[in-house]
């Protein structure tokens, strides 16, 4: 049997893998994707689909900001079912201390050329009447957006296929070898480059990567158009995302184009089961109700969980794996996979083609985890 041969083999058809397949095929590279189950089915399916610029570090800001720009450029080509909405984010400040943090945040954004507006208590309530009274204000980031990620992943894969890319589905990659990937049915696919975009499964394929599952819960309501107009996130979200504690929740509510509300968020380490943890769900909702008491009365129709692939230093792993030159990592995006998928793909394509990238790629380099001593 003739064995196929590619320039790039992408493992994983989640949003990151799909973006890689699309970006590589756009440059004329011969691409194939190996997907174990369904397109956009892992963390991509479970997540909120929030396209957000984050300022928890320079490197995070650079990556999310660059990637958000790429999403805006792509937006006109996205089909309807991707439901791209430039609804913006409001970072909500509960008290004066958080308001001071809001002002620092605005400084940070604006000095780097990203728009952000301060909302005082009154304008916050005008922007979002269903928030409780007495909140200090917030930061409005108008260019943030929301998408339905599984359909975005499918769009990107289909675009890659229209340029000749192949997808092997359902197929499980078992081993990444120099110059090829062995599937668990024993067959080999030859490829010059291999991209490990397998999310929480990536460490199984590349031992030595530190990517842990960080469980999250979400709840979706029935349709309440205009109940919430922007994605609302409490400033404390950053504390939750960055903590090493085992469990945390943060207020995070998203309006979908359907008028449904997506309510999050929660984070837990060391929890391998997909089952809903009713205690976590309860905590998460209680936190959400603190900011938006009227949420309590909305009809909640579904809850689910997902696993974010998390690295120890909160930055993703993008770039060559030092122990295997043709292996490129595209994993460990934690809660920012959807936002940073497009930038991840561009950094890798730049590397493959040997051209300079639009932002420095060193902060995301895998080499850093081989040198570091972990706290």
């Amino acid at each position: 049997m003739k064995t196929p041969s590619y320039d790039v083999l992408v493992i994983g058809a989640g949003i990151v893998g799909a973006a890689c397949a699309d970006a590589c095929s756009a440059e004329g590279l011969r691409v194939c994707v190996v997907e174990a189950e369904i397109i956009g089915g892992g963390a991509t399916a479970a997540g909120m689909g929030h396209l957000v610029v984050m300022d928890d570090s320079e490197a995070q800001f650079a990556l999310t900001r660059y990637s958000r720009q790429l999403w805006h450029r792509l937006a006109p080509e996205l089909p309807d079912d991707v439901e791209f909405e430039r609804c913006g984010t409001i970072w909500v400040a509960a008290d004066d201390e958080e308001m001071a943090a809001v002002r620092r945040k605005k400084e940070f954004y604006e000095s780097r050329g990203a728009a952000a507006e301060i909302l005082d208590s009154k304008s916050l309530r005008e922007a979002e009447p269903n928030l409780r009274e007495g909140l200090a204000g917030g930061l409005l980031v108008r260019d943030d957006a929301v998408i339905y990620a599984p359909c975005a992943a499918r769009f990107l894969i289909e675009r890659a296929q229209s340029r000749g890319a192949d997808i092997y589905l359902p197929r499980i990659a078992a081993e990444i070898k120099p110059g090829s990937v062995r599937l668990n049915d024993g067959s080999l696919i030859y490829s010059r480059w291999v991209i490990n975009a397998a999310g929480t499964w990536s460490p199984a394929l590349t031992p030595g990567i530190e990517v842990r599952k960080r469980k999250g819960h979400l709840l979706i309501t029935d349709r309440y158009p205009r109940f919430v107009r922007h994605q609302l996130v409490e400033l404390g979200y950053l504390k939750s995302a960055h903590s090493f504690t085992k469990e945390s929740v943060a207020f995070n509510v998203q309006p979908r184009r359907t008028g449904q509300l997506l309510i999050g968020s929660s984070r837990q380490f060391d929890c391998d089961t997909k089952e809903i943890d009713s205690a976590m769900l309860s905590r998460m909702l209680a936190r959400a109700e603190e900011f938006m008491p009227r949420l309590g009365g909305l009809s909640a129709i579904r809850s689910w969980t997902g696993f974010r692939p998390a690295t120890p230093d909160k930055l993703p792993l993008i770039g060559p794996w030092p122990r295997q030159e043709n292996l490129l990592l595209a994993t460990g995006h934690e809660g920012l996979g959807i936002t940073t998928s497009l930038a991840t793909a561009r950094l890798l394509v730049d590397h493959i083609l040997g051209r300079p990238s639009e932002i420095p790629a060193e902060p995301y380099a895998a080499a850093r985890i081989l040198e570091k001593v972990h706290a």
Partner: protein
Amino acid sequence: MSDMGRSFEVLVVGAGPAGIAAACCAAESGARVGLVDNNPRPGGQIWRGGENHAGAPEAKRWLQRLESPGVEIISSAEVIDNPVAGFLLAQSPRGELIFHYEKLILCTGARERFLPFPGWTLPNVVGAGGLQALVKSGLDITGRKIVVAGTGPLLVAVAAFLRQHGGNIRMVAEQAPWSRLIRFGLAVAAHRNKIAQFFQLKRQLAGVPFRAGCWPITAEGSGRVESVTLRAGKKTWKEPCDFLACGFHLVPNTELASLLGCELRAGFVRVDELQQTSTPGIFCAGEPTGIGGVELSLLEGQIAGYASANHAQKAREFFAERDRFRRFSIALERAFALRSELAASPAAETIVCRCEDVTLGRIRSHSSWRAAKLHTRCGMGACQGRICGPAIEFLLGWKVESVRPPIFPVPAESLTARDRATPESVST
């Protein structure tokens, strides 16, 4: 705000015939029993409306027996989650309710199976059991033209009921062919009460055309249904109607059982001879273990009731009769199996998921239920696949599953009531 939670030795979920029988027998064996049901009065679907509508003397007897002091009936309460082992969370007009149980008997009944065809989403295209339920809850159908279609013994029972309530039944269209109906008739001839029921229905439906091997292929109308096109063999014709009462037999309500981790087999809850599921301490009786009608539900309910109260000996007395009616249940499934032509009725543009308006064409462009759900949102609406799921299983052969709490939509704040699921918060 809601009161304290309640603790029971035996908690029965569902107050249809199976649940009523289970609750009575458990209570009579000395257990402290709770009976939770989402309707305002016990009776389930078939004995809906309690004593006023129940009709059959059997229903009256059981409802009276239910008035025993050992049973606490909690009506208008819908179970939505099992937040902690041994506890159920329910929603009601009075707020959230927490129940603690030592033994649990699931009698969650069945729902109608709906198959899509062009026009099936028009107003006044209703289930067969659905229209009966609407009439029992006050809908006036006097003089309205009604076509009853689909499959199953429910059709003639519903047609007779609707006629009694003033409906003008134009036709009953049963998709099963005469050959299978006759075989079924012979199989049930052994059950004397079934023969009596049959002749009674025949009387009640005198003059109403009954066609076998006949099924709806489209419904037409502007703003509501005005006619249905039926097919029988090569012939098709239009039947004008104000209501189309159309249902294709029953599918079991297994969501709560699945949530509790009980194993299913071929879509039904697997139980042992004492009606115990794969999860110790949890029993299941009635339609969720196999569609078998009132008699089988009553028998399984009695067995589960006695078994849950540690009266296995008494439970065994009903085994032989249960076996008889299990055979009836098998005959039922064979007789009313869906013919393959029904799968040809929906077009690519026909909506299959009514909650999210997803068409058949979009759904079948995917390779699995999970992929279709994720990419089209079919099955992700308020009904969580209860309506489209059985249809898709029949049309595409996919296994439709995955249950998560809440198993019915609830006010979001109810999900924070989980903290009251502790032994200290419940009273006996």
